[in-house]
């Protein structure tokens, strides 16, 4: 395995949780729900995955529990914003906060440990050897391949499936959808639920795929990166994939350079700077295509 293929291999690995969560965020965005709680949902998924795997002995039951738990957790956002018309940003931030407290609390009460739970007997998601795909694409956990499939499915669904069309309509003009008998609440609930399920898978991949353990706050900002990826990718599944890939590669390259004299702090900062520059370029390109906007036009 050459160094370069290892680089991309690890970039893909780092990308997967971000990608899964960002896909969920993109679907919410399309349905008109701003989901800033990806980080918290993913963290719940991490915990549930480890708990499920540990108590059942099966990593796949862990994955299932992660999806269920994050889906249920996402319902707090759904009920709060869709039914009760609470503020999505407030609730999202609260969910992120709650997840840290809740998983920490449960870790101490259910596992009797603090900080990290890991055990050699904890079943993780093994890599699948798909040798024909080459060293970069082969050898990942099944969830990695699921995430790629999810991108394709989401892209086709949103662009071409009638329900995808309705979902986008709900996000763009809920009143208009309602007058045609499409319930915005229903689609928004489903979108938030889907984002919960995807964040659950993201958490499972992080806790049982990338590593095999749970540690407090182990998402470490990945959910926020997913939020940024949704914006950079304009809530398009393929866009989100590219945005995530950019971030993942920047991070992996940063790692490499770290070994070659780049200060660790610069390596840490690199992916954020690269993402910001990408945002500049993409908005600048869009701006050039568009006419200048009036001051009272849509919020800039």
């Amino acid at each position: 395995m050459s160094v370069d293929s290892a680089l991309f291999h690890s970039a893909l690995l780092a990308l997967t949780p971000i990608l899964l969560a960002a896909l969920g965020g993109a679907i919410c965005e399309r349905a008109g729900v701003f989901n800033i709680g990806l980080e918290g949902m993913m963290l719940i998924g991490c915990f549930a995955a480890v708990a499920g795997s540990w108590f059942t002995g099966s990593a796949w039951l862990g994955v299932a529990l992660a999806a269920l738990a994050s889906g249920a957790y996402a319902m707090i956002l759904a009920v709060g914003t869709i039914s009760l018309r609470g503020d999505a940003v407030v609730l999202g931030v609260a969910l992120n906060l709650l997840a840290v407290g809740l998983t920490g609390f449960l870790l101490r009460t259910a596992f009797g440990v603090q900080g990290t739970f890991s055990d050699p007997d904890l079943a993780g998601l093994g890599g699948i050897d798909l040798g024909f795909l080459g060293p970069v694409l082969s050898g990942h956990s099944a969830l990695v391949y699921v995430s790629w499939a999810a991108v394709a499915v989401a892209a086709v669904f949103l662009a071409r499936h009638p329900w995808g069309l309705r979902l986008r309509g709900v996000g763009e003009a809920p009143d208009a959808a309602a007058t045609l008998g499409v319930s915005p609440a229903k689609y928004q609930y489903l979108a938030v639920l889907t984002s919960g399920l995807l964040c659950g898978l993201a958490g499972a991949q992080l806790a049982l795929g990338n590593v095999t353990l749970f540690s407090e706050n182990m998402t470490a900002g990945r959910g926020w990166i997913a939020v940024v990826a949704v914006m950079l990718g304009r809530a398009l599944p393929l866009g989100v994939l590219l945005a995530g890939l950019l971030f993942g590669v920047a991070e992996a390259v940063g790692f490499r350079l770290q070994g070659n004299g780049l200060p660790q702090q610069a390596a840490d900062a690199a992916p954020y700077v690269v993402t910001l520059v990408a945002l500049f370029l993409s908005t600048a390109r869009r701006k050039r295509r568009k006419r200048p906007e009036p001051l009272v036009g849509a919020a800039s």
Partner: protein
Amino acid sequence: MTPPPEPAGDAPAVELRGITKEFPGTLANDRVDLTVRRGEIHALMGENGAGKSTLMSVLYGLQRPDAGQILLDGLEVSFASPSEAIAAGLGMVHQSFKLFPSFTVAENVVYAAEPRRFGLADRAEAVRRVAALAEEHGLAVDPAAKVGDLPVGVRQRVEILKLLYRGARTLILDEPTAVLTPAEADALFGVLRSLADEGRTVLLVTHKLREVMEGSDAVTVLRDGRVAARMRTADTSADGIAAAMTGRAVELDRMRPAGSPGGEVLSVAGLATDGVRDVSLTVRAGEIVGIAGVAGNGQSELVEAVAGLRPVAAGRVTLDGRDVTDATAAEHRAAGLAYVPEDRAAVGTAPAATIAENLAMGHHRGHGLLRPGRLREHARVLIERFGIKAASADHAAGSLSGGNLQKLVIGRELAHESSLLIVEQPTRGVDIGAVQTIHDRLVAHRDAGHAILLVSAELSEIRGLSDRVLVMYEGEIAAEFTREEADERRLGLAMAGAAAGPDGSASAPGSLAEAPVPAKEAR
């Protein structure tokens, strides 16, 4: 593809019996009976808040009545949601457009009833069906165009296509012409008439007497939630309907006395901005200059550029002798500009803020610290002066009805006593009584020596108020008329792009009803 209307029976197409709907504190509909025959165009009239929209919402399954029955073709129905109403052959065009701007026309029309192929939405088939439907009913639209790029008149057609696509036999339209020009409105009525002739039924909410008189077969008037009058259009007069609505005699379409213009206040020379080319105009003190034109011909852009809300690409704007071409919006206001924008809820107010806070905007500058007592007093004075119906100045402005919100905006801007007032669509969607109040205020403002630039799609309004009329077409001033020259015919021709001279001796490009709406980008 449109299922042909069912064979006529004896029963009326729509019958509402004793519909009662109470909102907390408001009896919106009080035992309303309404009978609409098949194949007729039935107008529903009434002042703002009379209960028209509520009644239509009840019929369409958006609201549950507290009491009463709904019968369609003689059979009692009960709708839990609009989709059930749609399935029963009803269709509704709402007061504000319910469209997806980023979708194509075809996508908007087939939304929630998409043709499918292999489980996916079949775009080609959707375009084909919509094109055929448009063709069949003479509604000219490009199915592949993005709705966000279309002018309002075309959007209205998309709304109607949506109903027809779903096989609606009864069409409910809530104030469909509020944003249309007379030409567009005439075109719409042409379509409605042909639909009625096919055997479909049209129920129409409107504030415009002219349309009712010219386009409807029957009229029901609501007042305070109750039926105030029921008549055949042929048997009544505009004055009669107006009297039934307000409970008093109303003087309609009054021509106001001319003003006595003084010195030049606003001068625009060779102005260009997005969608506007080489516009020059002046407005003098004590003068109302009206700008007529089909929506989307650059009026809004022009006004925004003059108000400092849109960058000026070329030309000069002078306000009270000061060059304000590149000045900020705040500098414009300081130089003597007041402005009533077209969209009172999205631009003219902060609906979530209190009425007092909304009334304070602009008046808050230059007094040092803000004193709550002073703000409330200011609000009290304006509420009283302009007859804004509000329970308290501490309520959210969004709680006001459209007409009252409009009075709030106009009152606030008039109170600036600025040398120039720009007013856009001052009476859109406002009932007859309020229209008169607003017109009176504008004329009084002019007579107090202020300059007014009035933009309206309402020809009677333009003619009734303006001392001079400019017509905009495709971003340019296409014609200028004096008060006397500006009759409906000449204005209409100029708006349709005929190079009409002041004598109106131009070649008309066709009848008004078929006037091509410029297919250019709306803002």
